[in-house]
């Protein structure tokens, strides 16, 4: 009797165990199915995100990332007019440039960050940008807009953004719209005020002054660099290539011989 009862109880226990195992397996299957759906939807969101990221970064042109890069490059460096760096630095690196000039753009993207880090931020130099319209008609409004930005002490940021968006030389791309976009994207610049001032007397004085000093120094190409010790006479920088190591070596040598 007791054996039959025990058997019955045993069978019941087994049945319960089987049912429990089946229920657990079912629950597990359901759980994995939901997890699969979660995985697929996560993949969908991811693909959409990557597509947005790719569309934002392709196609060239100026992006908010350029603005951010420019903000970072010049962050914390004093700027007054067209001079970047401490006003009382022991020497000045004068750069004659044309915003349409691709070599000037290469200097700004490849060498300037090192010059800023090792010389300007370190207080060994300040650097002055003098724009001369040497390449052609499009250079003139470009220089004037940068000069207007210098009235707000943002010439270096504006010029850097211009270089990043350089078009085909003298193709007529330097329009008011183009300059307006750049001015608005320049960190810290009141763009509309700068645009209003491009034809003003102070801007004319600045660009004429730069052109006159270039003529006096015999500058006939861009970029051309001079090192001027404080209170001394300018000496043209030579024997360098447009890469940070070579340019730094030329700067060191010029600074030693001053």
């Amino acid at each position: 009797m007791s054996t039959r009862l025990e058997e019955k109880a045993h069978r019941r226990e087994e049945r319960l165990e089987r049912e429990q195992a089946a229920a657990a397996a079912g629950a597990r299957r359901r759980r994995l199915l939901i997890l699969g759906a979660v995985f697929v939807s996560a993949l969908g969101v991811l693909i959409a995100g990557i597509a947005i990221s790719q569309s934002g970064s392709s196609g060239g042109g100026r992006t908010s990332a350029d603005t951010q890069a420019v903000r970072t490059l010049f962050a914390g460096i004093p700027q007054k007019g067209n001079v970047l760096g401490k006003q009382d630095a022991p020497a000045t690196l004068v750069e004659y440039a044309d915003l349409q000039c691709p070599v000037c753009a290469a200097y700004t993207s490849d060498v300037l960050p090192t010059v800023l880090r090792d010389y300007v931020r370190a207080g060994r130099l300040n650097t002055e940008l003098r724009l001369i319209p040497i390449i052609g008609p499009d250079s003139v409004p470009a220089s004037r807009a940068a000069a207007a930005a210098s009235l707000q002490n943002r010439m270096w940021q504006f010029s850097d953004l211009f270089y990043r968006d350089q078009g085909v030389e003298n193709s007529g791309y330097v329009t008011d719209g183009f300059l307006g976009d750049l001015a608005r994207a320049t960190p810290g610049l009141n763009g509309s005020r700068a645009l209003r001032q491009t034809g003003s007397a102070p801007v004319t004085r600045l660009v004429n002054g730069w052109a006159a000093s270039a003529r006096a120094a015999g500058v006939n190409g861009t970029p051309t660099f001079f090192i001027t010790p404080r209170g001394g006479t300018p000496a043209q920088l030579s024997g360098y290539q447009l890469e940070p190591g070579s340019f730094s070596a030329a700067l060191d040598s010029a600074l030693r011989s001053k």
Partner: protein
Amino acid sequence: MSERRLRLLAAVLALAGIAVASYLTWVHYEGIKPFCVAGGGGCERVQTSDYADLAGVPVALIGLIGYVSILASLLIPRDLGRFAGAFLGLVGFGFSVYLTYLELFVIDAICQWCVASALLMTLLMIVLVARAARGPDVAVRLAQPEMLEPVAPG
């Protein structure tokens, strides 16, 4: 590992992620250079690259939002919270893989902070997916048949 431990581990990882992403977001908006242990300016290059924004929103801020959302998902009870956490972990992990690919092969610079975030996100994904796959603690599951016990004959 118990549900409680997995949740706690996920919370710790998410908090570490919040710390890293907060720092990078701050650096982004302040326009300063991120502190790099080995120097080299990799972080700066990554942070100022074309890929530092996603539709105008800094990637660092997206990361911060992601970590905060994961932390919030840990507060949602039962399976809803578990699956929401796994979803966020998977998206975050996939995005970290994409960003690391960009660093290595497109931007050509490695940012230590981004690597740290990618590692945290990978660990988070593992923990969150494991938590969702495993479900509630066994003790809780056994509690249900026991609750039916009085109905069964003695």
